[in-house]
């Protein structure tokens, strides 16, 4: 206790010393003109002070300040029918440690009723402005308290808590999601709310409430939604042009003093409007505060979610914010996305300036997302392959299992037979082609050569067929199929012979230089049979195919 009081005494002594030592310096400085202008048309009091020092080498200072919660509702509780009166407490004389030669104050009130104001000398009302001054040659620390009591029609909308999530996706989109907890900070509503009186025309009662909120979003905003925990809120309008997108929203009920509501607004923005590259780093250039005009935010939390694989993250803001880092797990993430969380209290629309978030990212990291999907699908296919190849039977010697094995072998043999027959048919087609070439070019030697090669090929194929046929006959389960297969092979052989015969006849005809018609006549009968045989072969092949 003793130590505490001695510290306080020390501090006081220090302060006194400074004041004493610097007072001469203060009293040398004289402000020649101070003009103050207070704008209270909205819920925020905006004070603009112009300070001028010196007459010949005049230096001018311009100070702009915005104050929240200085307009006190008076009376503090009103009914639905009353008008909303607020009170502003100020000093008509500029409180400063310097001597001021000439000063004036003008208060701009909203275009409504002025209930009362402190009347000093040199005070007058001009329209909706109250002017105090000019006061000449006032001493240091002069102070004249005034109170202005007036009606305000402004919406006292205050967001108790606003969470703004800005998610950057390098595939082309910046998604902004804003969660609002709104409250009306004006005079509280006492008594009941009557919807009838509120909607009565021509005299609606409920001037102190507000219904609409206007948000100015960046241009080219798309996929805008406005919903709350219940669902979509349809009372909203959107108007867009090349410079901005205006969203006018209407909460589910009008807000009277003390009433609260909560909702979420979300919209997407094109990436190239907000993401830029400079000096090897990328940066996101986006506005910090809420896009709503005339909204005071008591606690603003901005979460900037950067894509996975972003490194060296830093934030540049034109004013002080509290920074921290988090991780968010979202779609197709392995390690999570880095999140920069910026917090600020008591935010006014003047804070809606651009902030920059710098980070490093290479486009290769974008590939990890499709790779994950590809791997997923590949695992599915591998499972299919393993399933068709794996043997899940419990007993390896039961009759059903052995029958299944045999049937597999029958199918395999059938497939091979089919392949060989297809090859034979291809050889037939080659023969026919050579005949057509002959009729075109008249070259007999190549025709004969083709016939010879085809002949040898067909002999090889029939040799391959023989063991397969034998195997097929040995399977008891193939007892129905093997006669058909044999029939197929026999027919194919017949077709072969007929084709060969025809070929020989035609070639001989060319050698003897007999006319075309003679040749035609000779092979006419053969031609019919060939066509019929071919048809039968095709039918049998189809039958085997369907097994």
């Amino acid at each position, binding site marked *: 206790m003793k130590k505490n009081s001695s510290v306080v005494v020390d501090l006081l002594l220090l302060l006194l010393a400074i004041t004493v030592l610097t007072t001469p310096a203060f009293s040398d400085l004289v402000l020649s003109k101070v003009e103050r202008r207070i704008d209270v048309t909205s819920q925020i009091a905006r004070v603009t002070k112009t300070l001028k020092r010196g007459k010949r080498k005049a230096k001018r200072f311009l100070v702009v300040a915005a104050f929240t919660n200085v307009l006190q509702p008076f009376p503090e509780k009103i009914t639905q029918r009353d008008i909303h009166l607020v009170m502003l407490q100020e000093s008509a004389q500029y409180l400063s440690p310097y001597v001021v030669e000439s000063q004036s104050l003008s208060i701009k009130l909203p275009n409504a009723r002025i209930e009362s104001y402190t009347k000093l000398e040199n005070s007058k009302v001009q329209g909706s402005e109250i002017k105090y001054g000019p006061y000449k040659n006032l001493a240091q620390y002069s102070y004249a308290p005034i109170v202005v009591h007036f009606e305000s029609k402004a919406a006292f909308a205050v967001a108790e808590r606003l969470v703004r999530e800005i998610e950057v996706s390098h595939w082309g989109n910046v998604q902004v999601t804003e969660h609002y907890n709104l409250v009306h900070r004006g005079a509280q509503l006492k008594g009941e709310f009557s919807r009838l009186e509120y909607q009565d025309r021509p005299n609606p009662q409920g001037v102190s409430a507000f219904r609409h909120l206007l948000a100015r979003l960046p241009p080219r905003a798309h996929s805008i939604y406005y919903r709350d925990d219940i669902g979509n809120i349809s009372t909203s309008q959107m108007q867009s042009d090349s410079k901005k997108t205006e969203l006018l929203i209407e909460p589910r009920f009008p807000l009277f003093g003390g009433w609260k509501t909560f909702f979420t607004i979300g919209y997407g923005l094109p990436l190239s409007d907000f993401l830029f590259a400079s000096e090897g780093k990328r940066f996101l250039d986006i506005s910090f505060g809420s896009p709503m005009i005339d909204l005071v935010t008591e606690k603003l939390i901005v979460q900037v979610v950067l894509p996975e694989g972003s490194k060296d993250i830093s934030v540049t803001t034109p004013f002080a914010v509290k920074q921290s880092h988090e991780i968010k797990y979202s779609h197709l993430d392995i390690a999570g996305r880095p999140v920069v969380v910026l917090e600020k209290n008591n935010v006014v629309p003047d804070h809606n300036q651009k902030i920059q978030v710098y980070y490093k990212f290479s486009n290769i990291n974008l590939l990890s997302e499709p790779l994950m999907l*590809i791997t997923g699908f590949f695992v599915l296919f591998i499972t299919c392959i393993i399933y068709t190849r794996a043997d899940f039977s419990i007993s390896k010697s039961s009759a059903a299992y052995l029958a299944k094995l045999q049937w597999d072998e029958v199918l395999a043999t059938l497939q091979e037979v089919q392949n060989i027959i297809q090859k034979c048919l291809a050889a037939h087609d080659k023969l026919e082609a050579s005949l057509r070439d002959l009729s075109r070019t008249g070259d007999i030697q190549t025709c004969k050569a083709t016939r010879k090669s085809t002949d040898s090929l067909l002999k090889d194929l029939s040799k391959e067929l023989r063991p397969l046929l034998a195997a097929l006959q040995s399977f008891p389960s193939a007892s129905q199929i093997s006669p058909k297969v044999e029939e197929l092979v026999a027919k194919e052989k017949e077709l072969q012979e007929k084709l060969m015969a025809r070929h020989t006849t035609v070639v001989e005809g060319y050698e003897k230089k007999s006319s075309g018609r003679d040749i035609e006549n000779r092979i006419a009968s053969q031609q019919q049979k060939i066509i019929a045989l071919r048809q039968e072969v095709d039918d049998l092949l189809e039958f085997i195919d369907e097994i």
Partner: protein
Amino acid sequence: MAATPIASPIAVAMYPTLSGITLAIGLIVTAFFFIYEATSSRKNRSLGMELSTAAAASLFLGFGSLFLLLASGVYV
């Protein structure tokens, strides 16, 4: 230092078209895979053919589903 705007590597307007094409090709190759599985017998099946068809199908299906997600507004 001049700041150049960054856009996505593929034009955003192309996402629906690309997703349709790649998904169609992917599904056709999947069909080939399953037809091969169904019609080939145990002895004749070749693992190389199976794996290559599966790889091609999963590649096209993976990209197709990615573009489908992007085209429908889920910017992953």
